[in-house]
């Protein structure tokens, strides 16, 4: 048999070769479905950058809230697994400050909604605001043994 002849591949090789492409397509599809502007002129809100970190005993949520008065921060459990953070900015921000003159509107609030993938006890949360970053610590709920 000559070396130039193509080696027969296992049927199981094929999916693995395309896993990366499938992952990329899935990401793109999911992104296309959920991608939206990071602002809402009707609600006068800008979406804050935020992060959720699930630890052994607690969930640590942070949100970047520059130019915000800490006294205005509101944290609310919207439903079982969604936490919302809202805060008022020290001053109103307009599109033209970003060099955008073809859109109208101004923003007074930061808002972010986060999916928390584990059960947590919002009543026992602790908060801290430092360097313009809010940190929320939510104790995890433990399953009771049957």
């Amino acid at each position, binding site marked *: 048999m000559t070396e130039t002849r193509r080696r027969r591949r296992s049927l199981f090789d094929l999916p693995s070769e395309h896993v990366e492409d499938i992952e990329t397509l899935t990401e793109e599809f999911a992104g296309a479905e959920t991608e939206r502007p*990071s602002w809402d002129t009707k609600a006068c809100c*800008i*979406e*804050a*950058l935020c*992060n959720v970190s699930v630890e052994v005993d607690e969930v640590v949520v*942070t949100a*970047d809230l*520059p*130019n915000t008065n800490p006294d205005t921060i509101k944290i609310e459990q919207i439903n079982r697994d969604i936490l919302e953070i809202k805060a008022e900015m020290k001053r109103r*921000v307009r599109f033209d*400050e*970003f*060099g955008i003159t073809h859109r109208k509107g101004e923003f007074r609030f930061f808002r972010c909604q986060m999916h928390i993938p584990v059960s947590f006890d919002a009543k026992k949360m602790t908060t801290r605001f*430092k*360097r*313009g*970053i809010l*940190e929320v610590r939510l104790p995890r709920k433990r399953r009771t043994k049957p």
Partner: protein
Amino acid sequence: MSEPVRIVEKKSVPSNALMLNGLPDVGLVGLIATSHIIGQLRMNEIAYVDSDLLPPVVVLHEGLPYAPLRIFGNSNLVATLSEAALPAKSVQPIMRRLVEWGQIKKVRLVVSMGGMAVQDRQEMEQVKVYGAASNPSLLKTLSDKGIEILHGGFMVGPYALIMRYCTERNIPAIILLAQSFYNYPDPEAAAAAIKEFSKITGLSVDVSKLIEGGEEIRLKARDMMKRTTEELNRMKKTQEFDMPLYV
């Protein structure tokens, strides 16, 4: 077949210049720092990067379209700056081409500034800047200037590749990594990186605007940070937290 990455020169490029890189990475540290330096030194666009690997994006400034990945310059400094997140898949060919271009232009030193994500960044009043270099002599220069050397671990992303390709081509290169937030813009870390950059290069850059206007920068950099974080996740940037296997 066309070149995968093309650098289009618009003005003459200085020879024997220092090459600075401001690319989107953790905390947007290098991007904020380089953008600040370009503004302070009033550098002009001299070239841009064109590639099918980049998204179909132009950036409008005063109604005129510009490529998102551009090169600015003056008589002794060239600086790359990206105004859009770089897709993970484009990073290797683009960094390879930028280093190759730098060699053709006979750059005397490549300096990259970036962030090094740390968990307790919120607690830090002062951030530390670490360094790495493409050869032992430059490492000594960093040490002599009081910069702590990054002795081990992983580097992931555009700067990691710049260091690798510069070493391969024997181009002197250093990287300055300031402790920073991972996915929040960090102008304070950018200011710290610039201070060390000034010590090494002798180029004096005032960083007071970065400190005083930090909150405004963070506000404006949100969308860029969000898209950069998505790409960093694709590059498996968190491998920088891994413990290397040295047997």
